[in-house]
C-alpha cells in the first residue's frame, strides 16, 4: 500500500512539473537579463529585473496598442458569436426538426475547417475592399472559428439543463416574462458565461488570421506583435522580451481559467463529447 501511495505522489509531481515547468521557465526568463539569460540555467535569476517588461512595452514594439487590438477583436468576436449562436443552440438542444443533425454536422465540420482554405479568398476579397489593417478583416474570419464553437458548446450545455423548471414555473402561475426572467435566465447565464470565456480564449489566441490581415504594426494583435519583436539593439536576443510579453498575454488567461476551472472543463467536454 505504501508503494502505491508513493507511486501516486510521484505521478502527481511528474505531471504537474511537465505541465507547469515550461510556463515557469517563461516567467523565469521574463525576469532574467543578459548575459545571465543567455547562458545561465538556474531557476531563480541572480538579479531579477523588470527590464524585459520595459523592453516589451518600449515604443518600438507598439505592444500596448497590440493588446488593445487583441482585446477589441476577441471581444467583438465573442459578443457576435454568442448573439448569433444562442438561438441556434437553443433550437438544436430543445427542438426536434428535420435537418437538425445536418445543422449539427455543418457546425462541427466548419469548426474543423483548415483556416488556410478560406484565407486565400478572404485575403483577396479584403485586399480589394481595402479592408487590410481593419478590425472587420480580423473579426469576420474569426467568426468562422468562434460561431461553431459557441453553437457546439452551448448546445452541449443546454442539453443538460433542467428545462422542465420553466414549464413548472408557468404551471405555478408565473407569467411568461416572469418565467423567463426568474427561471430561464439564471439557468442559462452560467452556460453562456462559460461559453463566452472559451470563445474569447480561442479568439485571443488566434494567429494565422491576424498575421494575414494586418500589415501595419498598429493593427497587429498581441501574438503577431510579440512574434515580430526584435532586440532593442541589433543582435540582442528578442526572446527575453518576448517571454515577458508572453507572460502578459498568458497570465490573465491562466487566472481566468483557474478561477472558473470547473465550468471551463465542463464547457470543453460538453461541447466535445455530446454536441
Amino acid at each position, binding site marked *: 500500500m505504501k508503494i502505491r501511495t508513493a507511486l501516486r505522489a510521484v505521478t502527481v509531481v511528474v505531471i504537474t512539473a511537465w505541465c507547469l515547468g515550461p510556463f515557469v*521557465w517563461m516567467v523565469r526568463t521574463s525576469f532574467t537579463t543578459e548575459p545571465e539569460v543567455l547562458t545561465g*540555467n538556474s531557476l531563480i535569476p541572480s538579479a531579477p529585473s523588470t527590464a524585459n517588461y520595459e523592453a516589451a512595452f518600449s515604443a518600438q514594439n507598439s505592444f500596448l496598442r497590440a493588446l488593445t487590438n487583441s482585446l477589441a477583436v476577441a471581444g467583438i468576436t465573442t459578443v457576435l458569436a454568442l448573439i448569433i449562436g444562442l438561438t441556434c443552440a437553443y433550437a438544436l438542444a430543445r427542438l426536434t426538426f428535420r435537418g437538425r443533425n445536418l445543422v449539427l454536422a*455543418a*457546425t462541427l465540420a466548419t469548426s474543423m475547417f483548415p483556416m*488556410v482554405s*478560406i*484565407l486565400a479568398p478572404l*485575403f483577396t476579397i479584403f485586399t480589394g475592399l481595402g479592408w487590410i489593417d481593419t478590425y472587420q478583416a480580423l473579426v469576420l474570419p474569426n467568426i468562422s472559428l468562434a460561431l461553431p464553437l459557441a453553437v457546439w458548446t452551448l448546445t452541449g450545455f443546454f442539453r443538460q439543463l433542467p428545462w422542465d423548471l420553466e414549464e413548472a414555473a408557468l404551471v405555478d402561475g408565473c407569467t411568461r416574462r416572469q418565467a423567463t426572467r426568474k427561471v430561464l435566465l439564471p439557468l442559462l447565464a452560467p452556460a453562456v458565461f462559460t461559453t463566452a470565456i472559451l470563445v474569447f480564449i480561442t479568439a485571443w489566441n488566434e494567429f*494565422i488570421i491576424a498575421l494575414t490581415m494586418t500589415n501595419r504594426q498598429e493593427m497587429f494583435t498581441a501574438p503577431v506583435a510579440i512574434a515580430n519583436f526584435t532586440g532593442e539593439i541589433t543582435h540582442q536576443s528578442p526572446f527575453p522580451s518576448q517571454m515577458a510579453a508572453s507572460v502578459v498575454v*498568458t497570465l490573465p488567461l491562466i487566472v481566468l481559467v483557474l478561477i472558473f476551472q470547473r465550468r471551463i472543463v465542463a464547457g470543453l467536454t460538453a461541447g466535445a463529447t455530446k454536441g
Partner: protein
Amino acid sequence: MVDPRQGRTAVPLVLPTLLTLGVVVVFPLFQAVRLSMYGENADLDVVFRGIANFTDFLVGPLSGQFWIALGNTTLFTVVSVTLELAIGLGMAMAMHHVVRGRGLLRAAVLVPWAVPTAMAALLWKWIFTPHGVANAVLGTDIVWGAEAWASRLAVVVADVWKTAPFMALLILAGLQVIPRELYEAARVDGAGAWQRFRRVTLPMIHGALLVAVLMRMLDALRVFDLPFLFAGSADNEDLVTLSMLGYKYAVQQADTGSGSAVALLTLLYVAVVAYLFVRLLGADALGTRSARKAGGRRS
C-alpha cells in the same frame, strides 16, 4: 418523431447561424474554387488555367514542395496525436484515481491549454535554443533549429505539451461516467488491474477516445502557428506544413490561384481523413448514438 410545429419554430432560430456561416465560410470556399482556376501568365495577365494550378502541385513543377509539406503534416499528425493519446490517457487515469493532489493536477493540466499556441511556440523555441534549458537538462549539445529531425521533434514536443491536457480532460469526462459497479463486478470475477483496464475501462471510453482523437487529428492536420514560428518562415523544408504552404502562396507571394489550390487540396485531404476515420472506426462525433442509447447521458 419530427414535429412540424417545432420545425417551424426552429427555422428562424437556426437561420442567423447558417446565414453567417454561409457568408464567412461557404462563400469564401466557392471563391477559393473559382480563384484556384486562374493564374497569371508571363505578361502578368490573369488567365484561366483550368486545373493546371492543381496539377502543378500534384505532379508538376511545384510537386516537390507539395509532397514535402504533405509528408511533414502527416508525420506530425500521426506522431503527435499518438503521443497525445498515450500521455492524455495516462494523465486522465492519474486524475481519475489520485485522491491527494487531484485539485493540483486538474489546475496544472489547464495551464498549457491556456497558453496561446503562438506563445507556446516562442517559449519552446527559446527552450530549444542551442544554449537553452533543453540542452542543459538533457546534457546534450544539439542545434535543434538546424537539424531536420531535431527541429521536428522539438515541434512535436511543444504540441504534445500544449494539447495532451485537452485530450486528458476529454478522456477524463469519459472515465467519470463509467459505473463503479462494473469494476466491482470485474473484481469479484477475479479480474486484475490490467484486465479491468483492458476489458472494462477501454471499451467504456472507446467512444470518447475516438472523438478526442478525431478532433485532435483534424486540428493537427491544419497546424500552422507552431511550425511557422518555430521555423521563422514558411520556407523551411524540414518543418513546412500544408497550411504554411498555402499561406506562403496565397499571402506572402500573393499568388491567389496557387494559394487557393493548395488550400483546397488541404481541405480535401482533411475531409478524406475525417471521412475514413468515421467510416472505418465509427467515431460518433455527433453523439447521436450514445445519446439514444443512454437516453442523453450526463457527466
